[in-house]
């Protein structure tokens, strides 16, 4: 019986009169790929923000790997293995792709209180970074300034950075947004390979990808969780069909 890695306990968030997260409770099991779907404006990204620590909830608890992380800032959660990627890619534009990833390696493994020694030439950091880049097919782009990468490459870089952190739980916020058909296929393959390494909470609109990858699916509508369960069960759920899948088929 796999244990629970992440627990949301009645998490609530409002912006004035608008309840973006309405008493959401959810359990993510270790090793699963859990998809979070729902119409636009359902509050999926706000939920990810609250999970990663960039947005403070009004009430409720978030327990990660046995530890309550509700009040912790983003960097503290990242250090504990709760890592997110961004829907609108957020990389270090003035650093090379390699350095972007090497910094993640540095954060996870190394001491940053070193005032001497050329960090850019640190072979231990760079080697691990290159491995992560290679997984995402970005090895040849290692020396390119991240700000000049194509949109798709930036998306890949986001994933490489997240991977380099060897996370326990990876929060992926619409990694396929704007990706073409072949790119999506490649991403699905990568995510499938990732499944073996870490638990994933995947927020996505791409239903093909979701049903291909997810072990379980949760459906968020107007801030409330209206269904959770195995893909077939969710697909068949009447409420879900009415609110969301009915339109997409």
């Amino acid at each position, binding site marked *: 019986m796999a244990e629970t890695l992440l627990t949301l306990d009645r998490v609530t968030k409002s912006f004035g009169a608008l309840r973006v997260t309405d008493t959401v409770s959810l359990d993510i099991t270790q090793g699963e790929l859990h998809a979070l779907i729902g119409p636009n404006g359902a509050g999926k990204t706000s939920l990810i923000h609250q999970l990663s620590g960039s947005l403070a909830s009004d009430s409720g608890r978030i327990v990660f790997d046995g530890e309550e992380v509700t009040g912790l800032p983003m*960097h503290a959660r990242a250090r504990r293995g709760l890592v997110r990627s961004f829907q609108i890619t957020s990389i270090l534009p003035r650093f090379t792709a390699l350095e972007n990833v090497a910094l993640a390696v*540095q954060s996870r493994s190394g001491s940053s*209180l070193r005032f001497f*020694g*050329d960090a850019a030439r640190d072979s231990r950091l760079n080697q691990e970074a290159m491995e992560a880049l290679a997984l995402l097919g970005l090895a040849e782009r290692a020396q390119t300034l991240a700000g000049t990468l194509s949109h798709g490459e930036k998306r890949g870089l986001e994933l490489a950075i997240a991977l380099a952190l060897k996370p326990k739980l990876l929060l992926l916020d619409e990694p396929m947004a704007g990706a073409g058909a072949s790119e999506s296929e490649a991403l699905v393959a990568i995510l499938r390979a990732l499944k073996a390494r870490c638990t994933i909470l995947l927020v996505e609109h791409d239903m093909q990808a979701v049903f291909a990858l997810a072990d379980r699916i949760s459906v968020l509508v107007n801030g409330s969780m209206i269904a959770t369960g195995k893909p077939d069960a969710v697909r068949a759920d009447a409420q879900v069909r009415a609110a969301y899948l009915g339109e997409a088929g």
Partner: protein
Amino acid sequence: MQDFATPMPTTQLAPPDRARLIVPVLLFVALALAPLLGFLGAERYVLALFTRCIIFAIAALGLDLALGCGGLVSFGHAAFIGIGAYAAGILTASGIDDGFIGLFAALAASGLFALATGAVSLKTRGVHFIMITLAFGQMAYFVANSLKAYGGDDGLTLANRATLLGRDLLADNRVFYYLSLAMLLAVYLFARAVVRSRFGRVLRGAKDNETRMAAIGFNPYPFRLTAYAISGMMAGLAGFLLAEQSEFVSPAFMTWQRSGDLIIMVMLGGMASLDGAILGAVFVVLAEEVLSGFTEHWRVIFGPFLILVVLFARGGLLGMLTGRRHG
């Protein structure tokens, strides 16, 4: 000249390395030879002028570490210069002449002030950070102004320069000059090392995209605080040298206009580049001197020059010399 954010390519080494060293080597050789201009006459004046260049270069390097590398726009950095200077002045006035003690006191005082004020300031960002550093700078200025025992707003004259190991070595302007130059070199090499180090990389990363750095587990605060303290100590060192060189300290060293001058030096030289900080400081000190020789109203020329550089020459002087634009 590469700026802070563009790293050394890991696959190519020797050629870019050599190219990058040309500017600093030239700068230091030029500064080493500058006293020779004294043979044209007025050696004392030449030495004093170039010592000032070196002193402000040290302060500018300190600010560049915080500003160019860390993205911290400190509008109160002149306070650290003043604190270092007053450390020298107060000790000399109290009969303690030893240079090493004075230097230690200057570094400790400015470092502590930087830690204390930085701890508070760094909780803010953007314009609030600028304002709060300005506020702390003003506080230091007003406290110095009220020190009646040490001259108040008239300032304090030092009876003599500090002694080294009991001997009046520093009284010789040439010795003082080359000692200061050695300090500049040491500070420069240290700053270069810090910028490229793991520590410096976190700082630069946080300047580039703070959210991304937090997302990979870095809390920028302790890094910034450390950088701010180091930066303050460098300015404190400059202040100590300034007091010794001019044998005078005054609250005028720490006005907000002087803090503005420091930012100008860093920016003019070409921000985010340590060589630029030295270049900018030397340029501003020399320009002020030369222009004020022509007219007491030199600011009426310098002001528009500054505006034009901001509007049209974003890479600063270094950018103009090397053809690179500010990234």
